[in-house]
């Protein structure tokens, strides 16, 4: 037993001096971590999992307060240690990896220096020994050309490499416990797979305990030995991994699983969790999940449930285990009936060879020396009432495609036609009537609503700009109807965005797009900033709207689970070009392009049985400013041949709908 936490409570001070109080964020949690074991703390944003990790190291932000409890770390009581001894624990006994590798490294110190200072501090190394050990560490975390990297600064490294350096820093003090706080959330799937792989390997080699903090069931399935589920500052369920995935017992955990979108749920509705996590200032006295629990009965609201042992190491904080009879009464609320897909005949949107290049200016006179080819010849078609998912890693140009189609960014070349009408040649005035027919929903619900405008004004903006419902009374009625359509109370019109949660804000954004009755909506990662349970609500809403209104979606995402659930067709992008395109079944079930295959295999699957063999991709996506010659993918492709290095592959057609660009298939033809 390296770490045992008992009754840990912490909170945040809030309010002005005259009304200051402490809001409890983590309430009496217990857990243990053994050597060589990974405990995953799973929870949605704001549940207190990061605060827990920082409390262990006593590294809370200025407003954070530890209110009580015991943290026993290899024999010493951390909360009682004087600060000087605590410093020996930090980095030496317990090391931490943070979520954002980009900001967690000091920008003005070299990699070697940042690793070296841990070695000097905890291993009392100096001089040449520091350098040697730092090199070994960089090798161990899989950084090629370590001697050169040692003298580089963080900004010279890619995101994945920065996280590797962070891991090297953490390992340098030979810690017994590694705390990883969402270590891969900021990374792309292929890099995430590399990092998770690395963490697993290092843990086995060093026999470290690991506390993994994550919101991703897929990561849990891959990494954890045991799982603790946090909700509103409490751990509500704890179980060994296999049992956790086989039979989750807490209603919250069950709901989390049910809310995950994937292919098996296509056509149906996703299970959602009603309501939202209670605010810190208004914690219910009984079970904290009672408000959102389908099984809740009065006892849940009055009495906070104690731990119930469910056998074989699983324990749950839920009254249902004391009164198991109540659980069966409820059938899952999965609406059946696969949707009837509207017949698709005319292409609503046709994009041909679309290009968006941004000039790179360099030198004394800022001459254009090259172009960032963000989008470099993308062609796609979208039928009325259908969903085309545009999938790719960050920086592949998928968002730029969406904005270029809507003419928010002027395309450099190619065609984008809305029902045969070429968009890129139109002036702003000529474009205006067409703007009614195509709209966009953005990624960040906090940045996509103007904080200074009331909800009614936000939704009404497009209507007034495009002359929809010119009459005041009619417009108010229309806005009220829209709010109802997206599941918000009509009384919301006079309220302001800050009064709404992330999911509700995304509903407002959807209502704003719907207000002008468009036929095509470009959805730019509309759920990537949301928690799983809220994501399910939004996906259900989008699906229902498509069924009711016959909308066509261009759905930009990096999340394959969402693609499986929502899309009809998929296009996979790599470095500004579409490398594979086809129906969902074709692309996701039998991917042909090595990149698609690797991408799919890298997605951590939240089920234990189905994880395919992970295809390791070397390196990261190169910069679109100077893409590799030949096939853009060849430097990372495990099956690359000479021809891949010299020529970009032509289009190969596997079936009427399944198209890809890869030399492996052009030869077969």
């Amino acid at each position, binding site marked *: 037993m390296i770490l045992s936490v008992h009754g840990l409570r912490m909170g945040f001070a809030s309010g002005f001096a005259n009304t200051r109080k402490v809001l409890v964020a983590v309430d009496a949690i217990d857990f243990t971590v053994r050597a060589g074991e990974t405990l995953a703390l799973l929870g949605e944003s704001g549940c207190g999992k990061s605060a827990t990790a920082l409390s262990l190291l006593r590294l809370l932000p200025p407003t954070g307060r530890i209110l009580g409890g015991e943290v026993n770390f290899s024999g010493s009581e951390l909360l009682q240690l004087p600060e000087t001894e605590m*410093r020996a624990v930090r980095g030496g006994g317990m090391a931490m990896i943070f979520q954002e590798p980009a900001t967690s490294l000091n920008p003005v110190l070299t990699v070697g220096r940042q690793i070296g200072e841990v070695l000097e501090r905890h291993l009392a190394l100096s001089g040449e020994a520091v350098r040697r050990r730092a090199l070994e560490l960089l090798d161990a975390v899989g950084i090629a050309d370590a001697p050169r990297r040692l003298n580089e600064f963080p900004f010279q490294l890619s995101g994945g490499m920065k996280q590797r350096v962070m891991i090297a820093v953490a390992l340098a003090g030979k810690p017994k416990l590694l705390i990883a706080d969402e270590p891969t959330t900021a990374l792309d799937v292929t890099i995430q797979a590399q990092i998770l792989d690395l963490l697993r390997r290092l843990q086995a080699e060093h026999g470290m305990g690991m506390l993994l903090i994550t919101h991703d069931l897929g990561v849990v399935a891959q990494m954890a030995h045991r799982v603790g589920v946090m909700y509103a500052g409490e751990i509500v369920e704890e179980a060994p991994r296999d049992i956790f995935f086989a039979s989750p017992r807490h209603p919250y955990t069950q709901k989390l699983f049910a809310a995950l979108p994937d292919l098996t749920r296509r056509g149906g509705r996703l299970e959602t969790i009603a309501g939202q996590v209670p605010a810190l200032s208004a914690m219910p006295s009984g079970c904290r999940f009672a408000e959102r629990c389908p099984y809740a009965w009065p006892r849940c609201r009055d009495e906070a449930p104690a731990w119930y042992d469910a056998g074989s190491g699983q324990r749950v904080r839920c009254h249902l285990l004391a009164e198991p009879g109540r659980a069966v009464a409820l059938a899952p609320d999965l609406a059946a009936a696969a949707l009837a897909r509207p017949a698709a005949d005319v292409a609503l949107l046709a994009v041909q060879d679309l290009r968006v290049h941004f000039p790179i200016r360099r030198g004394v006179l800022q001459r254009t020396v090259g172009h960032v080819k963000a989008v470099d010849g993308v062609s796609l078609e979208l039928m009325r009432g259908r969903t085309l998912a545009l999938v790719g890693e960050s920086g592949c140009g998928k968002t730029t495609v969406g904005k270029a189609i809507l003419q928010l960014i002027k395309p450099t070349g190619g065609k984008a036609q809305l029902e045969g009408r070429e968009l890129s040649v139109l002036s702003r005035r000529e474009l205006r009537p067409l703007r009614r027919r195509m709209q966009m929903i953005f990624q960040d619900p906090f940045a996509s609503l103007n904080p200074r405008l009331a909800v009614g004004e936000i939704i009404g903006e497009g209507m007034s700009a495009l002359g929809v419902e010119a009459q005041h009374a009619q417009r108010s009625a229309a806005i009220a109807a829209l709010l109802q359509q997206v599941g918000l109370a009509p009384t919301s019109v006079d309220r302001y965005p800050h009064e709404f949660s992330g999911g509700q804000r995304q509903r407002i954004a959807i209502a704003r797009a719907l207000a002008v009755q468009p036929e095509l909506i470009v959805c730019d990662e509309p759920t990537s900033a949301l928690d799983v349970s809220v994501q399910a609500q939004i996906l259900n809403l989008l699906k229902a709207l498509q069924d009711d209104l016959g909308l066509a979606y261009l759905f930009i995402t990096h999340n394959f689970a969402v693609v499986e659930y929502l899309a009809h067709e998929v296009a996979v992008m790599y470095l500004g070009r579409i490398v594979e395109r086809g129906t969902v079944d074709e692309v996701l079930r039998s991917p042909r392009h090595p990149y698609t295959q690797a991408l799919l295999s890298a997605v951590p699957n939240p089920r234990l049985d189905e994880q395919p063999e992970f295809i390791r991709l070397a390196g990261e996506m190169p910069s679109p400013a100077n893409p590799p010659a030949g096939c853009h993918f060849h430097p990372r492709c495990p099956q690359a041949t000479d021809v891949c290095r010299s020529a970009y592959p032509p289009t190969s057609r596997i079936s009427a709908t399944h198209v890809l660009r890869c030399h492996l298939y052009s030869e077969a033809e």
Partner: protein
Amino acid sequence: MLAYILRRLLYAIPILIGVNLITFALFFVVNTPDDMARMQLGVKRVTPEAIEKWKAERGYDKPLFINAGAPGVGVLTDTVLFTKSARMFVGDFGRAEDGRDIAREITSRMGPSLAIALPTFILGLFVTVSLALLLAFFRASPLDFWGVVLCVAMMSISGLFYIIGGQYLISKLWRLVPISGYSGELDAWKFLILPVLIGVISGIGSSVRWYRTIFLEEIGKDYVRTARAKGLSEVIVMFRHVLRNAMIPILTGVVVVIPLLFMGSLLTESFFGIPGLGSYTIDAISAQDFAVVRAMVFIGSVLYIVGLILTDISYTFVDPRIRFE
């Protein structure tokens, strides 16, 4: 990096031309030379002949922009714009009202100005950065709170009072150093010590508060948390991590003023009777000596632009992101 510096240098040229044109417009277009003559001669006993004589003595009798009557390139060069404005680029500032060469006067007065401004600058920077670091180190403690209160109080006091109070207390009441004056000899220190001290103290309030904000901003960043998670002591975190990063915004404000140190300080020099450029400017203002003021405006701008370029260069020392671009 070379291209970067070269680009900044090239960018300075249009700005200098702009500054030159602005000063020209201010001094010759807003008011005509005739107006200036009338003002200088006194409105009452002004005659057309006196005005013409006044203008001719100073070379203001030429056309402003184009001298159609002049031969050859003289069309452009034999004008007020060229002789009074464009020639400033080569260091020709003309003569002051008292007939002395302005350029020579400026070079001889730079020394005393620098003798005050440079120690004030260096000592001030050292003191304020140290104090700010101290407050940031003890952030959210009573020391920090009262330190900030003191800073706000100190920055609410006019610079004039620092000088008046300092002169009264130290020179008049305690008679420690002479109240004013200057010497080019070795004993200059006794004239310099008071103005330098006052210069440092009067700058403490606003600078300490500003630097403290910068430090606190850096302390809130993720990499500081990483450094603490390594088990480093707070002192090492402050000096190795926070100070290095905070130097970038601090340099922005500090390096710019280094060349301007040559210009001296208007207030200090006039109060302490230092024969530097600051008092030169003040005297010129009260004597309404347009030529001197015009020269000082131009030199000030040139020095400021040099400061901007120095700032850009200094970034390459503290910020590897620019050094390796």
